[in-house]
């Protein structure tokens, strides 16, 4: 092997390790990576009454979400899914924010919010239909107030804002949370959603998971200022939270939701986290980022730090962890079996929901398609 080929395979340190765009992130943190609970005058009150059982619940949510995510990655490798977008590393940001919500709140996700979907009670297997290619969104958004995954990044922030404007018109005290990422923060739609929500004082929380990478582009390709500071220019508060700290993510989101309910308008939460895996199963991070960076973030793992805290505080015993391990494996098995059993859609599904009230051309083309299929001698179609 030549020197050149080695260099080509491994990113140089200068390209792979980067300085954060901010000089020093002002990070809200309640649990250190070592699992130590640190005081925070502003946000402690939002988790002051949290019980050991609820803490174990957060831990369970994160472990099961990670297990589901790992199973989905495996299913993609086995050819059962066409693609998977892993949330590995972002469990705390998603479970913390997801568990801050009330049932009547409404969620607008991107395509990576598997942890939030879990919190909303969307069956994990339902998330896999679109990645298997049997549908483009397999759940009823209104049964869990969890909108369909949005693939074109940033678009959903406007839908969230409109929905929140509707809540305000209805005089309700529900709130909306819009998920997006550091890459989407560059989209015009996100800027427009900030403008609209500020002007109409809409009850919406913009929850940006800054996972440091938009496929291969680092955050400094998106912004010169820390993302949470953008809110200031639109006239509403922004805060950066340790997105690998489930307790801090929960507290900060609760605070932001309370503001929304109290008629104080939008809030931007930047959950500072890390995409531990590839962008999707089609991506190859070894081409653009260094292993050292990932290793540094591994030390801040969201699940490990809560486990350390639970153990140190005697909030969970070995039985709990063992039981969770069993539950976790059962979930993996259930997901695996459900995906393998997922049938291909009927071929006429192509036409089925193109319009709500019908369309003459669709009717005509469906009839033509049916006639073509029927023209095969065995009646089984092409």
């Amino acid at each position: 092997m030549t020197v050149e080929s080695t260099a080509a395979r491994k990113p140089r340190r200068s390209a792979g390790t980067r300085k954060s765009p901010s000089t020093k992130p002002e990070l809200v943190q309640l649990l250190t990576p070592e699992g130590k609970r640190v005081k925070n005058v502003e946000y402690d009150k939002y988790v002051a009454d949290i019980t050991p059982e609820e803490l174990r619940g957060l831990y369970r949510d994160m472990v099961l979400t990670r297990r589901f995510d790992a199973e989905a990655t495996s299913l993609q490798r086995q050819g059962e899914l066409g693609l998977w977008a892993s949330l590995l590393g972002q469990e705390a940001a998603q479970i913390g924010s997801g568990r801050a919500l009330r049932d009547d709140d409404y969620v607008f996700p991107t395509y990576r919010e598997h942890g939030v979907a879990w919190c909303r009670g969307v069956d994990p297997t339902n998330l896999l239909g679109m990645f298997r290619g049997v549908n483009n969104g397999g759940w009823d958004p209104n049964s869990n107030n969890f909108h369909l995954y949005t693939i074109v990044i940033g678009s959903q922030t406007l839908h969230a804002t409109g929905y929140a404007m509707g809540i305000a018109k209805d005089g309700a005290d529900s709130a909306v949370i819009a998920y997006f990422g550091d890459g989407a923060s560059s989209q015009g739609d996100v800027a427009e959603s900030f403008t609209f929500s500020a002007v109409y004082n809409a009850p919406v929380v913009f929850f940006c998971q800054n996972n440091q990478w938009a496929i291969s582009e680092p955050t400094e390709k998106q912004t010169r200022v820390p993302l949470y500071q953008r809110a200031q220019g639109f006239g509403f508060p922004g805060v950066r939270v340790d997105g690998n700290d489930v307790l801090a993510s929960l507290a900060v989101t609760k605070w932001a939701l309370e503001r929304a309910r109290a008629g104080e308008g939008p809030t931007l939460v930047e959950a500072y986290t890390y995409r531990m895996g590839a962008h999707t199963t089609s991506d190859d991070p070894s081409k653009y980022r260094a292993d050292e960076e990932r290793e540094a973030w591994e030390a801040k793992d969201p699940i490990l730090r809560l486990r350390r805290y639970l153990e140190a505080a005697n909030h969970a015993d070995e039985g709990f962890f063992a039981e969770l391990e069993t539950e976790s494996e059962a979930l993996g098995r259930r997901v695996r079996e459900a995906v393998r059993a997922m049938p291909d859609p009927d071929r006429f599904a192509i036409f089925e929901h193109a319009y709500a009230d019908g369309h003459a051309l669709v009717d005509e083309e469906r009839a033509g398609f049916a006639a073509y299929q029927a023209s095969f001698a065995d009646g089984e179609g092409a």
Partner: protein
Amino acid sequence: MAAETVTFKNMALAKAINESLRRALDTDPKVLVMGEDVGKLGGVFRVTDGLQKDFGESRVVDTPLAESGIVGTAIGLALRGYRPVVEIQFDGFVFPAYDQIVTQLAKMHARSLGKVKMPVVVRIPYGGGIGAVEHHSESPESLFAHVAGLKVVSPSNASDAYWMMQQAIQSDDPVIFFEPKRRYWDKGEVNTEAIPGPLHKARVVREGTDLTLVAYGPMVKLCQEVANAAAEEGKNLEVLDLRSVSPLDFDAIQASVEKTRRLVVVHEAPVFFGSGAEIAARITERCFYHLEAPVLRVGGYHAPYPPARLEEEYLPSLDRVLDAVDRSLAY
């Protein structure tokens, strides 16, 4: 006011849309009117004049100047159960919203396997002939008709403007409502009791035997003038007002062409990949043995919409349509 039987003898097309929006706001509390300058000003064409005064700022919403934001928030409002009618101020300003319309609005129903409906009307004043600056005279209807999930309509007269707006607002599918801005001040009779017919059906506005002229929106009036001029030369033209571009009433065109055996399609939009191309292809398929001449098209050229001093050269005119009629009849 909706309960009264009222026939307006002489109502401008713009006023008919205004009355229709007023009726919708009055009868359905979920209907919203949104857009730039639609409030106090009543829109740059005064189509929403007086609505905010009567229904308040929560129902008739002045928006920030961001078209993607207007359509994107309308989608969110529709998800919340509202029926937003949004105004895009001019045809050439719709493109910042094109992504939201094509990628989200059009596909949401299918994406949700029918669980979610998108009753959103996007009003777009369109077309030329008013001597405007760039981006104020375009006809982008084909760009929307090409997208499954959208419906595209364009009224040609005050009565249709009134009723088609009622029907568009009642539709559970998104409707792109193209308003012929050069006809905003043309007056006609509007009966607010009698529904003239389904939203997506064409109408024969003049019966004839020698050739069919097909148009919609601003070009219907021109085609009627062409038919009158041709009548002086002893040619008896049929004029069909399509009213809807998607779905498109091919049955009505077919019925007419089977009678007249000749077809000329007229629209302001560029001919290349325009709705006339689709009509020509389908009618050729459906009426191959009936046609005495190839389907001809009259429309804009494959060039950016010209400065106002040249627009009369660019737009279909009486003489250009008559020329196409003559060419068709010469076969």
